[in-house]
């Protein structure tokens, strides 16, 4: 079934949008609906889908938020490759038909919306936060001290901290496709991100991933790094973590120095007085 908005200008360029439709819990099965959508040079796939939702079929389910590749909500398979819909321009795809499908390796909720519960469970299991013995969360909140890190220290993990948890790497991973207990590239790369951070003192990080379904089930297909919209290289993080576990790389991490600083409240009060 092809649906198009006849009210549009006939000179406008149009793209055929093939959208996967499925509603979990209903026996209607899955099918594709095709829509003809006008587009311009800067129109993204998300724009086109929102056009469909506004003017053609409001029942199309999509998840989105920021529209600027920051929130990681609008991940979907576009022409067979996991991409962010808000970060993919129609003009760049250079095809007459764009196929939008839900992310593979995620349970489908409805149409293009998938269930991220398992993905976030894996992420949480990695303890994705700094664990430092001598500093509690309360101390950090007071802002009375800071950790010194050199630019070299930051470089070791910086790219991995750009992860927006969009799930594209997880959906592209062939191991996740067969092994649901495998944490996936996102979680493992985050484990490396905290392992390489000089502020982190946890001794259990390597044990968490040293499991039957842990880091060793990564066969270095590299598809995770290829699809990351933020330029993170999860495959690199996984291989670096493996090299530490095999003893090829030595963990020469020097804990970051704790530096006493004036509390934020004091700084605020003193600056307020001077004004």
């Amino acid at each position, binding site marked *: 079934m092809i649906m198009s908005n006849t009210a549009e200008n006939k000179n406008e360029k149009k793209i055929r949008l093939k959208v996967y439709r499925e509603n979990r819990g209903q026996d209607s099965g899955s099918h594709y609906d095709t829509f003809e959508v006008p587009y311009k040079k800067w129109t993204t796939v998300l724009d086109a889908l929102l056009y469909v939702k506004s003017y053609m079929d409001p029942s199309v389910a999509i998840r989105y938020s920021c529209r600027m590749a920051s929130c990681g909500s609008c991940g979907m398979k576009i022409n067979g490759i996991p991409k962010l819909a808000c970060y993919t321009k129609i003009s760049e795809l250079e095809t007459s038909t764009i196929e939008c499908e839900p992310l593979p390796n995620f349970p489908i909720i409805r149409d293009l919306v998938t269930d991220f519960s398992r993905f976030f469970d894996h992420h949480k*299991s990695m303890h994705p936060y700094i664990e430092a013995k001598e500093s509690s969360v309360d101390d950090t909140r007071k802002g009375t001290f800071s950790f010194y890190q050199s630019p070299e220290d930051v470089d070791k993990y910086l790219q991995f901290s750009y992860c927006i948890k969009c799930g594209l790497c997880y959906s592209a991973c062939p191991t996740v496709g*067969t*092994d649901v207990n495998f*944490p996936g590239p996102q979680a493992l790369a985050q484990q490396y991100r905290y392992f390489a951070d000089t502020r982190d003192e946890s001794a259990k990080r390597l*044990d968490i991933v040293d*499991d*039957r*379904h842990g880091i*060793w089930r990564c066969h270095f297909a590299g598809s995770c790094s290829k699809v990351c919209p933020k330029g993170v290289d999860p495959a690199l993080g996984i291989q670096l973590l493996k090299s530490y576990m095999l003893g090829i790389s030595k963990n020469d991490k020097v804990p970051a120095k704790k530096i006493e600083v004036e509390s934020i409240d004091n700084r605020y009060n003193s600056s307020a007085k001077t004004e």
Partner: protein
Amino acid sequence: MASRTILKESQIMKIHYITGIAAIFVVALHIMMRLVVPFEQSLEYDYIIANYKNIVYVLILEAILVLISVHGFNGIRIILLELRQSRAWENMVTVVTISAMIGLIAYGTRTIILANGL
């Protein structure tokens, strides 16, 4: 997440990588030893029995048997672990692959010993 096992997965994988790399060298050595005579001659009964009497050749054969068995059966274990996930399946896969590995090494070693005439 981590399960209680005799060996950590990282230790198993170290063994996996070492046996894999070592197998390349011993198999290469084995092929080179076969190449010193024409291929047809290398398959003759007397030549093969004579090889089994050569202690260096026998040691290489035994090394190939052990290295390939350990590497291969661990590889099968990994494939099967990725195929299905449940505690019972994983334990069954581990027991079956280790048993098959020990069985194959024992049977192969017996063949080498018998052919050697020890």
